C-alpha cells in the first residue's frame, strides 16, 4: 500500500524535524515549530470531523478559542495549574459541542457550515462583551507557564517538547481512530450517507462523536496556544484561526493525521520564509499555497503516496483470512407490509401496496419505469418515510423506522446503481457493512473476505473499487448485503448489466440464500431472469398493485400487459 511506503518518508521527515529542533533551531525557529504543533493538534480534530466525516464544521476555531479562554481565565484569574486547566480546556469545548452538535448536525452541508460559523460569532461577541470575565477586547495577560512535575515549562525547547509530545500522542490517537471502526464508519458516511445508513451505521451518533472528538482536540490546542503566548484575546475566536485549520487539513491531505502535521509545518513556516518582503509576503504565500493545491490536489500526503509508489512501486492491498460471520441469534421471521402509501407532492408514488416476504421465499416486484418499485424499496429500507400503512419485521412494528435501525434489525438492500466508495479497497468496502456489528475493523475484514469468497470474487479483495467492471461491482455490492447475514434482502435490479452466464451464477446464489431462510424481494426488469426464480410476483403500475400471484401467471395477465404496452392484450 502506498500509504505504508510513504510512512518511510514521513518517519524520515519526523527525524529531520527532531534533529532541526534539537540542534539547529533558534528560539524563533522553535517558536514557529511550537505554533505549528499547536495547529497540528487542532487540525487532528478537524481531520476527523471534516476529513473523515465530511462535515464542514466551522466551529473548530471556536472550540480552539474556548479551550484558550478556559486556560486563560482559570490560569490568570484563579491561579489554576496546568494539571487542572488542560483537561478542563478539553472538557468545556466537548460539553459545548454535544448540545450544539445535537442541534445542528442533521443540517445539510452548507447550512451546517453556516450554523457552526454562527457558534464562533456568538462566542466572539461574548468574549468581547464580557470584560469582567474575559478581559474584553484586550483579553487576559499574565497567563502562567505550564507547570509539569513542579517545573515551569519555559519557552523554547521545553515548550516545543511539550507541544510536540502532545502532538505525537494526539496523532497516534487520531491515527488509530481513523484506521479503526470509527474512522472507517465516518469515511463511509462522508462518501454516501444513505448507503451508510442502510449498512446499519447511525449517522447522527457518528457525526456527534466526530464533532465531540474534534472539540477535544481543538480545546487541547487552544490551551497550548495560550501557554505559548501567555495571553488570550478575542483573536483566538476569529475566523482566521478557522481558515488556518481548514487550509492545513486541505493542504496536508484530507482525513490524514500525517497531513495535519505536514500542513501545519508548511503553513506556519511558509509566511516566515518570505517575511523580508514586508507586506508582499502575502502574495507569495498565496501563490505558494495555490501551487501546492494545484500540484498536490490530494494534499501533501497524497503527493507523498504518489512519490512513494513511484520510488518503491505499488504493493497490493493487504488481505484477510476469511471468517464466516455469525448469524443473528433471533432473526426476524420475514417482512409483512400492509397498505403502504407515499406521495411526492401531488403524485402518489406508492398507493396501498401490501406484500408478505416469507423466510425462504423469493418475491419478484415488477412494473414499468416510474411505477414505484424503487420507492417501495426505499420505504421498506427506511430511506423514505411512508405516509401511511404498516410495516412489520418478524412481527415487530417497524413502520417509519430509520434506515440504520432497520439494517440492524436484519434488513439489507442493494441499489439500482451499485454504490461503492471511491478510492477504497474492495475488502474495505465490504467490511464497512460489518462496522456497526463487529468489535473491530480486523474482524469486519475477515467477515468481508468470507462474503467475497462466497460470491466467487475473493481475489478482488486486494484491489480497489475504482474501475471495477459493472458485473463485479454488483457482486461486491451484493457481498456487502450478504456479509450482514440479513433476514430480509431487498435487491434493486441486481442483474442489470450482467451477461447470461453471470445471471445464471447470480440466480444460483439467490436460491442458496433463500434456502438458508432469507426472505428476498427482487426488483427486476429481466423476466427471463426473474420469473424462474420468484415463487410469487407483484406488478406495480402508478404506485398500485395490479398483479399479485404466481410467477407463471404474470405474462398472461391483461392488466400487466396493458401497463407495459399501453393497451390490453387480447386473451
Amino acid at each position, binding site marked *: 500500500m502506498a500509504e505504508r511506503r510513504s510512512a518511510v518518508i514521513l518517519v524520515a521527515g519526523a*527525524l529531520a524535524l527532531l534533529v532541526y529542533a534539537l540542534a539547529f533551531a533558534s528560539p524563533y525557529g522553535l517558536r514557529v515549530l511550537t505554533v505549528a504543533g499547536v495547529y497540528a493538534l487542532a487540525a487532528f480534530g478537524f481531520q476527523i470531523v471534516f476529513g473523515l466525516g465530511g462535515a464542514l464544521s466551522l466551529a473548530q476555531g471556536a472550540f480552539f478559542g474556548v479551550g484558550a479562554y478556559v486556560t486563560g481565565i482559570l490560569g490568570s484569574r484563579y491561579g489554576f495549574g496546568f494539571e487542572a486547566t488542560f483537561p478542563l480546556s478539553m472538557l468545556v469545548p466537548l460539553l459545548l459541542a454535544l448540545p450544539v452538535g445535537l442541534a445542528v448536525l442533521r443540517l445539510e452541508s452548507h447550512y451546517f457550515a453556516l450554523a457552526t460559523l454562527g457558534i464562533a460569532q456568538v462566542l466572539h461577541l461574548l468574549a468581547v462583551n464580557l470584560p469582567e470575565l474575559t478581559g474584553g*477586547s484586550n483579553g487576559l*495577560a499574565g497567563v502562567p507557564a505550564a507547570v509539569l512535575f513542579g517545573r515551569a515549562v519555559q519557552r523554547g525547547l521545553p515548550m516545543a517538547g511539550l507541544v510536540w509530545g502532545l502532538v505525537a500522542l494526539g496523532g497516534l490517537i487520531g491515527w488509530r481512530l481513523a484506521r479503526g471502526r470509527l474512522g472507517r464508519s465516518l469515511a463511509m458516511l462522508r462518501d454516501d450517507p444513505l448507503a451508510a445508513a442502510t449498512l446499519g451505521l447511525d449517522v447522527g451518533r457518528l457525526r456527534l462523536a466526530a464533532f465531540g472528538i474534534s472539540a477535544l482536540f481543538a480545546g487541547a490546542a487552544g490551551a497550548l496556544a495560550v501557554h505559548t503566548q501567555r495571553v488570550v*484575546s478575542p*483573536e483566538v475566536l476569529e475566523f482566521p484561526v478557522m481558515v488556518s485549520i481548514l487550509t492545513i487539513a486541505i493542504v496536508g491531505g484530507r482525513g490524514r493525521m500525517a497531513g495535519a502535521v505536514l500542513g501545519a509545518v508548511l503553513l506556519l513556516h511558509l509566511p*516566515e520564509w518570505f517575511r523580508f518582503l514586508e507586506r508582499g509576503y502575502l502574495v507569495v504565500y498565496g501563490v505558494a499555497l495555490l501551487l501546492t493545491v494545484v500540484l498536490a490536489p490530494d494534499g501533501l500526503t497524497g503527493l507523498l503516496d504518489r512519490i512513494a509508489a513511484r520510488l518503491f512501486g505499488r504493493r497490493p492491498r493487504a488481505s484477510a483470512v476469511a471468517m464466516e460471520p455469525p448469524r443473528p441469534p433471533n432473526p426476524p421471521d420475514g417482512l409483512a407490509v400492509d397498505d403502504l402509501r407515499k406521495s411526492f407532492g401531488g403524485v402518489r408514488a406508492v398507493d396501498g401496496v401490501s406484500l408478505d416476504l416469507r423466510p425462504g421465499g423469493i418475491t419478484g416486484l415488477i412494473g414499468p419505469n416510474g411505477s414505484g418499485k424503487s420507492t417501495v424499496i426505499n420505504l421498506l429500507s427506511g430511506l423514505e418515510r411512508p405516509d401511511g400503512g404498516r410495516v412489520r419485521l418478524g412481527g415487530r412494528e417497524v413502520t417509519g423506522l430509520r434506515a440504520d435501525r432497520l439494517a440492524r434489525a436484519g434488513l439489507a438492500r442493494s441499489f439500482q446503481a451499485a454504490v461503492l466508495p471511491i478510492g477504497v479497497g474492495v475488502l474495505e468496502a465490504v467490511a464497512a457493512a460489518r462496522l456497526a456489528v463487529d468489535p473491530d475493523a480486523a474482524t469486519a475484514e475477515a467477515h468481508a473476505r468470507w462474503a467475497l469468497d462466497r460470491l466467487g470474487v475473493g481475489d478482488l479483495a486486494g484491489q480497489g473499487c475504482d474501475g471495477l467492471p459493472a458485473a463485479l461491482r454488483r457482486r461486491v455490492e451484493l457481498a456487502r448485503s450478504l456479509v450482514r447475514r440479513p433476514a430480509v434482502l431487498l435487491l434493486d435490479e441486481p442483474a442489470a448489466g450482467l451477461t447470461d452466464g453471470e445471471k445464471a451464477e447470480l440466480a444460483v446464489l439467490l436460491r442458496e440464500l433463500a434456502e438458508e431462510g432469507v426472505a428476498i424481494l427482487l426488483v427486476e426488469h429481466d423476466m427471463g431472469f426473474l420469473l424462474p426464480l420468484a415463487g410469487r410476483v407483484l406488478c406495480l403500475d402508478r404506485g398500485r398493485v395490479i398483479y399479485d400471484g404466481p410467477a407463471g401467471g404474470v405474462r398472461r395477465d391483461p392488466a400487466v400487459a396493458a401497463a407495459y404496452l399501453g393497451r390490453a392484450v387480447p386473451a
Partner: protein
Amino acid sequence: MRRALPLLIGLLAVSSCLSSAARADDTLSFPVLVPLTGFLSLEGTSQRNGAVLALKQTPAGIAIASEVVDTGTSPEAAVTALERAAGRGTVGAVAASMLGTQMLAMLPLAGELKLPLVTVSGTASITEQGNPWVFRFFPGDAVTKAAHARYVVEELGKRQPAVIYQTTAYGQSGKAHLDAAFEALGVTPVFEEGVDPAAKDLLPVLTKALAAKPDVLVLHLHSGPTALLLRQAASSGVTLPIVAGSAMHQPSTAALLEPAELKGVCAETAASPISGGTPEVKAFTDAYRAAFGKEPDAFALGQYDGMTMVLEAVKAGARSPDAIRKALSAETFQGLAMTYKSDGKGNMAHSAVIVCYDGASRVPVLVKRYDDPTLAAK
C-alpha cells in the same frame, strides 16, 4: 530505527560545531514590527514610515540594521516576529506594534528578552502591566480621552454626547477612559454602543444614536469605520457637531472623504504635522512626503520621535538594550510633536491637541492644545 539513531547523533554532533561559530557583530539592530496588513494597515504603515524615516537619519558613526516585519493583527504573529527579531544580531530597541493586543502579547517576551519596545499604541493597559520595557510615544487614552471629553464639554458646551466606539482593545480602552473623563466633568453620555471594525454599514448605529437626542457625536473608531460613519452622517444630513478619535486626524482617513463631508468635524490627536508648526515639523513633513509620497500623521510623528530619542540615547553612548531602556526611562526629550518624559510606567507623551476641518480642505486646523489634560481635569 537502528539506522536512524546513529544518523541522529551524527547530525547533532555536526550541528554543535556549527552553532559555536556564532557571528560577532557590534551593529545595533532596530527591528520595526508593525501591522501592515489587516484592519490597522493604514495606521501601521504610518508607524512603519515614521520609524524608517528616523532610522534613515542615524547619527554618523553609529552602525545600525533594521528590518520591517508585518505583524498582521494577531498577537501570535507579533510574538513570533519579536522572537525572530531577537535572534538577528544585537537588538537595541524595537519599534513595536500599535495594536494593543499585540503589545500585550509581546510584553512578557520583551521582559524575558530584555528589549525595549517603542510604540505609539494608545491602549492604556500596556503601561499598566508593571513591565519596564515598554515606552509609549503617543499620549495614552488617559490623556487623549481627557482632552477629547474636555473639548466637547468645555469648548463646545455640549452635555449630551452619543459615544460610538470600536469593539476592539483600542475601542474598549478609549470608551472606558471617555466614560471616566465625562464623569469627571459631570456629564453622562445619552448613548453608547460598540461597533465591529468589519461592519460595512454604520447607519443602524448612527440612527440609534440620533434617536437618543444627543447634542454631539463622539467617535472613537479606527480609520476606515470613522470615514464610513462620517460619510453616512453627511449623506443623512446630520448637522450635529462630531468630535472623533485620533484616526480622523490621519490624512489617509481624510482622503477617504470629500472636504464637504468633513465640515464641522473635529478630532483629538497627539499632533497634526500637516497642519504646520515649527520649521522642524515642516522639515519632517517634507522629508516624509519625499520618502513615501504620502502625508504624515501623528502616529508617524510619534514613532519618529520615539526612534529618534532611542538613537539620541545610542549617540550618547547607550550600546545595549538595557542602557537604552535606562535612557528612555530617565531622560527628557524634546521631540517634534511634544516634550517626552516617562511617568515611570513608560508613558512618554502627555499632551494632546484638537484639530478641526473647515469643509473646504482636507488639512485640519489645530484649535486647542492640552498639556497634561488629565491632571488639569482632576
